[in-house]
């Protein structure tokens, strides 16, 4: 980019601009990454896409390039969907107590694609488990969609896992005695869909994932990449607003890992899902809008 893009004040299409702190390594971003960063900042102040295009056109960018960038930049919304307030998690063993998360506070907006990264043992998966109500914080609270989940009873947690959040696991965790279409259809049927509707929707999802010709294959007959795509399909089928992906690429080769990350990005953009991705690969974390770095139990948020 040859000129700086000015970011206006919220809902003010006038000349007043706000000072937004750029990431420390902003200058090392390539043009495409820079433009995506700018687009996200514009969307945060609720700037309309057509106004974003006008501003870039004034700077000499082509309409096609800007449109392409708009398509590939996450659908950020102003509302906070996940609010983590002073959350601490302590694991107690016979030998010692280990504090994995120390009073973490952070917000994730609806439509964001956030990567959580850090060294092994830094608490990435623990944080994900807490957001997904698979575990409980030792202290603090987690507000999801305006509700304090730490006060949920068992039935509310079950309902939350059924309707509000979808998981993608490191080891795929598919149902071994169901074929591909049934793995997805079962999720839909759990939520009340009829068998016929569930199968129809499952086939549509398999088509989206380029797995339609594998519909009758059992998980053991699918490759690692195909299994993980199927797991993503199951997550999509749930139609939950939040997708939690715990190291979905760690058991895949580079090519399949890239494919999975691209697929997650597509889901974030096309379907507006909020995605929290746990990864220990910094390069993969850069695919997200924002990276949350966990270190020594604390969280630092970095814009990508």
């Amino acid at each position, binding site marked *: 980019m040859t000129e700086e893009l000015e970011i206006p004040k919220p809902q003010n299409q006038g000349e007043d601009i706000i000072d937004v702190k750029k990431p420390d390594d902003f200058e090392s971003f390539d043009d495409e990454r820079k433009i995506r960063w700018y687009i996200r900042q514009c969307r945060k102040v609720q700037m309309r896409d057509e106004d974003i295009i006008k501003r870039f056109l004034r700077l000499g960018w082509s309409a096609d390039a800007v449109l392409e960038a708009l398509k590939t930049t996450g659908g950020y919304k102003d509302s906070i969907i996940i609010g983590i307030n002073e959350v601490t998690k302590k694991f107690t063993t016979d030998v010692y107590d280990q504090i994995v998360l120390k009073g973490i506070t952070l917000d994730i907006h609806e439509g964001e694609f956030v990567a959580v990264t850090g060294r092994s043992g830094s608490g990435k*998966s623990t944080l994900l*488990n807490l957001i*997904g109500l*698979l*575990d409980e914080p030792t202290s603090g609270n987690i507000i999801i969609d305006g509700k304090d989940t730490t006060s949920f009873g*068992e*039935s509310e947690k*079950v*309902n939350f*896992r*059924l*309707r509000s959040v979808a*998981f993608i*696991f*490191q*080891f795929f*965790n*598919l*149902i*071994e005695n169901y074929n591909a279409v049934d793995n997805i259809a*079962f*999720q839909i049927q*759990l*939520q009340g869909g009829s068998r016929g509707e569930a199968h129809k929707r499952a086939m549509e999802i398999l088509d989206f994932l380029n797995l339609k010709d594998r519909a009758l294959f059992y998980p053991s007959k699918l490759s690692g990449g195909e299994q993980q795509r199927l797991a993503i399909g*199951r997550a999509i089928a*749930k139609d939950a607003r939040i997708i939690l992906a715990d190291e979905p690429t760690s058991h895949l080769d580079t090519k399949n890992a890239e494919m999975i990350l691209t697929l997650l990005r597509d889901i974030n953009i096309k379907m507006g899902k909020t995605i929290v991705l746990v990864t220990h690969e910094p390069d993969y974390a850069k695919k997200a809008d924002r990276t949350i770095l966990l270190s020594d139990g604390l969280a630092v948020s970095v814009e990508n």
Partner: protein
Amino acid sequence: MGVVASDEKSTTKISDKIIDGNFVNVANLDQIVIGRLMAQSLMGNPYGKNRARAGMEVELINHLGWSQRYTIGGVADAKSFIPNWLVILSKEQLEKLDPSQKDSEIAVKLKNPRDGAYVKSLIKQKNPNLNVYIWNEQAGYVNDMIGAVSFMTNLVNILVIIIVFVLVSIIIFINILQKKRQIGVLKSMGIDNKFVFRIYLSETMIYLAFSWIIGFLIFLVVHLYLLNYPMPTLIGDFHTVINWQTAALSIAALFGAAIAGTIIPAILAAKIKIVDVIRDNV
């Protein structure tokens, strides 16, 4: 007195059970009828294949050493222990062998079995020279035998129920151990503890249904075989009977045992913590 053979339940008319020759008749007072087991024992083995036939001669000796030769007029098979060891002869011949048999016997059937002791004392009062017995004083061992068989049957039933309980518990428990991760995955997808519990209850019901059907079919085959070829035992020929009340009770007992065996493992499955099982690659 009070006994009408045709009105009694489960009576056997021995004269209708002749398998060789004829029953005792007045024309041939020196002929006797013997039971099948007696006939077989005369050939050396009461449970062997050979038996004495009609027309053979035998010598009867009583406890006083008196003896008399007779011809076997017929062989009876009442399918029961006591009659199959009997020797049946005319009263005149019996009195020759055992003078005490000159006396008549009168059987009195009471409407209420509990009146036995009272009626006995009444008869004795009026007839002091009569020997009066209640039936189980004469044949009380029959009750003891039935009691023994019932005890063994009940013991076997209790053991079977315990075995079903233990087996079902073990099978379900092993199933849960193998499916622990899958249960965790299902719970992460949004199923609740009741769903998990119902899965295992349904599994038990399926095992129960199939095992009862297979067990009944095996019993039916054995039952039909024994009806045609009853098994000889010391107390008589043995064959199974179908009693639908007993069958219903057995279903209920096995159902209860299976459910009881499922409850604890199913509760354990429902309590599996998701985070503990989904992380490991099993």
